[in-house]
């Protein structure tokens, strides 16, 4: 079975435990070991502060690595510190970027329409999937962000295990929410999800290097679901989302 990692991170973290595989070649080795053919990768420099510089640094780092596709971090263009919609569209088109990652809490901006209208309007218009860690908009904020921007496909990553009672109602109410399977580890989590909400809203990702790729692939391989469902999760759904992007 072929895997495509919908979200992993490159670049040297400020603080890391000894043994954590943050180097790009270490990540590539784990991907090979886990049969992961390709990955959408974002850069830690973009995620931890210098968004636009980090995005460009990412392009340079993965230029010679065909398996890795760029995922840009984004935030509202406060005081023109980030690209406005048109400039962002051109830059993404030019560099083959088809997904964005936001982090309202970490980047200290509101997620409500008055602050993110321009950025989300662009994502809706061009069908660009938007990723964020569950901690960036947890509990009722998850409902608000999916409800405020119904035409944007959101993929939440780094979910861990304690969100089902918040996740269920939002999956019911909003059709634009997708779940990254990285460390979604409740017992029989994927089976229960597929039973109640269908596999086409699950997107395989690893959260490398902080998340474990070996665990992520095992979760899908050993899940008690059909082969077709596994294929959708492993690469089918993300390929469909990426195919819909119109820049």
């Amino acid at each position: 079975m072929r895997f495509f990692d919908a979200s992993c991170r490159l670049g040297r973290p400020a603080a890391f435990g000894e043994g954590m595989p943050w180097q790009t070649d270490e990540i590539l080795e784990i991907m090979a070991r886990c049969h992961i053919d390709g990955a959408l990768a974002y850069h830690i420099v973009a995620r931890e502060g210098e968004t636009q510089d980090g995005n460009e640094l990412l392009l340079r780092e993965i230029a010679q690595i065909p398996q890795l596709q760029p995922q840009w971090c984004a935030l509202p263009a406060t005081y023109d510190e980030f690209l406005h919609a048109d400039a962002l569209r051109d830059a993404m088109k030019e560099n083959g970027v088809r997904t964005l990652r936001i982090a309202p809490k970490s980047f200290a901006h509101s997620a409500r329409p008055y602050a993110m209208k321009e950025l989300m309007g662009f994502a809706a218009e061009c069908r660009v999937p938007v990723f964020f860690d569950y901690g960036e908009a947890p509990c009722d904020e998850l409902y608000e962000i999916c409800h405020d921007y119904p035409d944007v496909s959101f993929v939440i990553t780094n979910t861990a295990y304690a969100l089902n009672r918040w996740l269920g109602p939002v999956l019911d109410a909003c059709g634009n929410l997708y779940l990254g399977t990285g460390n979604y580890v409740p017992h029989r989590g994927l089976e229960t999800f597929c039973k109640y909400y269908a596999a086409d809203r699950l997107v395989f990702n690893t959260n490398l290097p902080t998340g474990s790729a070996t665990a992520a692939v095992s979760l899908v391989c050993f899940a008690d679901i059909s082969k077709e469902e596994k294929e959708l999760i492993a690469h089918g759904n993300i390929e469909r989302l990426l195919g819909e992007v119109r820049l």
Partner: protein
Amino acid sequence: MDFRELVYGQKPFEGVFVFDVHGHIGFEQGSQLGPNDGESMVHTMDRMGVDGICVSFSPGIRGAWKRGNDQTKDTCKRLPGRVFGYAVPNPFHAECDLTPYFEEDLGFRGVKIHGNIQGETPENDPRYAHAFELANRLKLPVLFHAWMPYEVDRAADVASRYPDLNVIIGHGGLTFARDRAVAACKRYDNVFCDTAISSAPDGSIEWLVDKVGVEKVLYGSDMSFFDCIHTLGKLALAKLSDTDKEKILGLNAKKIFDL
């Protein structure tokens, strides 16, 4: 045995003894997890080739202690040889006594201490002493929920005062408290770590084995809160020798659990 082939062949871990030292059954009040009864847990264990597991009944830890231990006893009785039990003491009920659960073989194989959800009671609190004396007398393993560095230190303190019991530092080996866990494992012979964690990077188990030696690392998965798949997969695909993997998966546990 090619562990990697197991994962991609989606084959159960047959031909190797797998014993999970960190299990839970029963309703999780704070968040909905997955099916949490004994039978659905054993169903997953059959699919994955896990031979046995030692569990505690979670609602009994934060609720009625006797009901909790009785629920564990009933589950062990229904699923003999597959599900074993940790007896859970309560620091607030003076009448709490775990000896009846060990007078005959009711499936109990150890004691579980989870102080932070019992009113933040320190793990080495004197009110748990009756359970430590029992474990020391019967040479039982005692699994500590030890996520924070001070919780790991308290577990080590118990190990130092009760040399005949074996302390298992639950979660601590892989969290930010891992340096304290390594120090404890090196200092005391009767201190071990488990691999139960929902999210730890690849390479963390290899790091732990490198620091404390493979004999001190036990397979644990927090099943049936979490699925055991991801921890088993992490171990199967780790950069460790097959013999190391087999020790972690069950051979180490055999030495300190009466199985």
